[in-house]
């Protein structure tokens, strides 16, 4: 339990679910060979990290930010711009990540000091405004960011599909640079997740939760609310930027749609709510369920759309157009917040209470 910093999942079913997800992700390249399943597994890893970092804010600190994709985007663009400009090298990755972390921390600090008050509403409003301005800026500064097209770049050769790590296939799978890249991603996510577990179990994490429960009381006890919340905001931003960097490295691309669009923000919100806010483990469950559902349900909507169109009811079909995915996601999100606020993790924990 040392590695979990004393923050075990609690609940037998939940533990089983989590172990299953992690084992499947760890063995994904061998269990589900092929590039599409590997992309899905990588997406689950990146989003688990991203959502967990968001949970630091919404779940543990009790504040809502709409700027989380901005930090995700900063990480993505950081490595993209560095690798695009400096060529495919480890140094470029290092420089890109470092620059992204500095920018993310500075921005998060500024936003936090400006707008983290006792009321959560103000912060939510400011982050929404800043994030939308940032998204517009990123798409306009095309000399730097590649504009709407984004930036495609190369990564070090050992991480490319062309690189063969082993001469012989292992369990019938060619162990190439792509698989190496996947494991690099997977292990980084695991390590960063454990660091976050450590943070929420630390005295700092406890104070955050005390502030969330009763800000006035925590202040009366002498805790500086703004200081703690600002630090939480900076930490969440750093982890989000790292998630963004990993995502860009995996995709070998950074652009508005994959790293900055508001629909990613909605994805994060849905995942954190479905998984369970304030649990951190909810991020893993939420990301896994969501990414799988997205791949599966969008296809299903496409089928329904085609069928309804063929049946001659184009108006109704309009609601099932795969482009209207956000409609159903939004509805699902609202219903989850109303009726399922504890999320899957909360539900599973409640089930295993004696």
């Amino acid at each position, binding site marked *: 339990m040392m590695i979990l910093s004393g923050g075990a999942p609690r609940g037998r079913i939940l533990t089983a679910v989590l172990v299953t997800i992690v084992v499947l992700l760890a063995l994904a390249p061998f269990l589900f060979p092929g590039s599409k399943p590997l992309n899905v597994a990588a997406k689950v890893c990146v989003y688990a990290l991203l959502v967990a970092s968001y949970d630091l804010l919404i779940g543990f600190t009790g504040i809502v930010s709409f700027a989380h994709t901005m930090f995700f985007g900063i990480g993505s663009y950081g490595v993209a711009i560095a690798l695009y400009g400096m060529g495919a090298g480890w140094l470029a990755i290092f420089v890109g990540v470092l620059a992204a972390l500095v920018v993310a921390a500075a921005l998060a600090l500024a936003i936090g000091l400006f707008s983290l008050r006792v009321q959560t509403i103000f912060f939510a409003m400011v982050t929404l405004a*800043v994030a939308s301005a940032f998204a517009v800026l990123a798409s*306009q500064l095309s000399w730097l960011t590649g504009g709407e097209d984004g930036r495609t770049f190369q990564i070090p050769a050992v991480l490319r599909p062309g690189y063969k790590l082993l001469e012989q296939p292992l369990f019938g799978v060619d162990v190439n640079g792509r698989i190496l890249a996947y494991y690099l991603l997977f292990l980084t996510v695991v390590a960063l997740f454990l660091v976050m577990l450590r943070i929420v179990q630390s005295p700092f994490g406890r104070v955050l939760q005390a502030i969330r429960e009763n800000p006035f009381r925590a202040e009366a006890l002498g805790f500086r609310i703004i200081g703690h919340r600002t630090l939480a905001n900076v930490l969440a931003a750093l982890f989000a930027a790292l998630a963004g960097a990993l995502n860009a490295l995996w995709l070998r691309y950074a652009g508005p749609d994959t790293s900055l669009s508001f629909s990613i923000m909605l994805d994060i919100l849905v995942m954190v709510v479905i998984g369970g806010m304030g649990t951190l483990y909810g991020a893993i469950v939420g990301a896994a369920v969501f990414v799988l559902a997205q791949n599966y349900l969008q296809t299903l909507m496409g089928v329904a759309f085609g069928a309804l169109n063929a049946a001659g009811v184009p108006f109704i079909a309009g609601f099932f157009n795969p482009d209207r995915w956000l409609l159903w996601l939004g509805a699902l999100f609202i219903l989850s917040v109303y009726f399922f606020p504890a999320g899957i993790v909360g539900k599973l924990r409640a089930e295993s209470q004696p």
Partner: protein
Amino acid sequence: MSAIEETGAALPREKTDVWPVLLPLIVAAAALPFVGSFSTWTTLTIAGLAMGMMIFAMSSGLTLVFGLMDVMNFGHGAFVAVGAYLAVVALAPLAVYAQSDQILVNLVALVPTALIAMAVSAAVGFAFERAFVRPVYGQHLKQILITMGGLIVAEQLLYAIFGPQIIPLPVPAALRGSFLVGGAAIEKYRVIAVVVGLIVFVALQLALTRTRIGLLIRAGVENREMVEALGYRIDRLFVGVFMAGSALAGLGGMMWALYREQVHASIGGEMMVLTFIVIIIGGLGSVGGCFIGAVLVALTANYAGYLAPKIALVSNIALMVIILLWRPRGLYPVTSR
């Protein structure tokens, strides 16, 4: 009652806070030397004022709703979008009147359109309040999430019903084009927008200061509990304010759609961001601050858009930051918030 309508010896004189009122004038004056040409400056200023009035119409309800009940509706932009689409729907059967080059005939098309836009937005507002605001009343985190979800669902429903494409919306014939004043081209529609915006502002001010309901709203912004302890049902008042705010947002959306001569559901989200900046600048809960904030934001955006288009993208945020550095709670902080 007349016997006692006299003011006696004066109380300590109140310091009138004029700086916020002067601010738009200062910004306009400061922009003149940079813009250089007086006629260009006039055109930009009128455009800024017109834009400011429309943004004010969209934001005023939002700030009042927050002041009264501590509710921030992240879905307020939905009403703006509804108003914009209703302009398309309602103007279509009245197209004959809109084509006329007689301004009075045009108004036969526009006035009913505006009324319909406001009525439907108010109705949508009523439903929105019931479905997304009331159930999570007092729980800020859920309130933010649910109303934001409501905006996304509303936006997607509009896409599903009207299609994802941009719908063109021509301005009625007599309001098209511009006239020249001292070398400055002034678009007719912008003048109309300024006039309508001013009417809305004055009507709102009168309602808030001269009517019993207005007094109750102002009292409620200050101390909700006491209004209830005097025997008034503030939740009903709140629903009324919410609907009125939605109607104004719908009017603003319709005006904006005609201004841009096109409609797209993304208007909701875009305007949402702008209205947030405006009411933060004005001071959450303050209608007067909201008015000044709207004018400031719009003027700055127009001048910046002309002088340095790249900077214009972040001019709103920069303005917000400067104002908050000066007054951390906005131009006119509402005392109880």
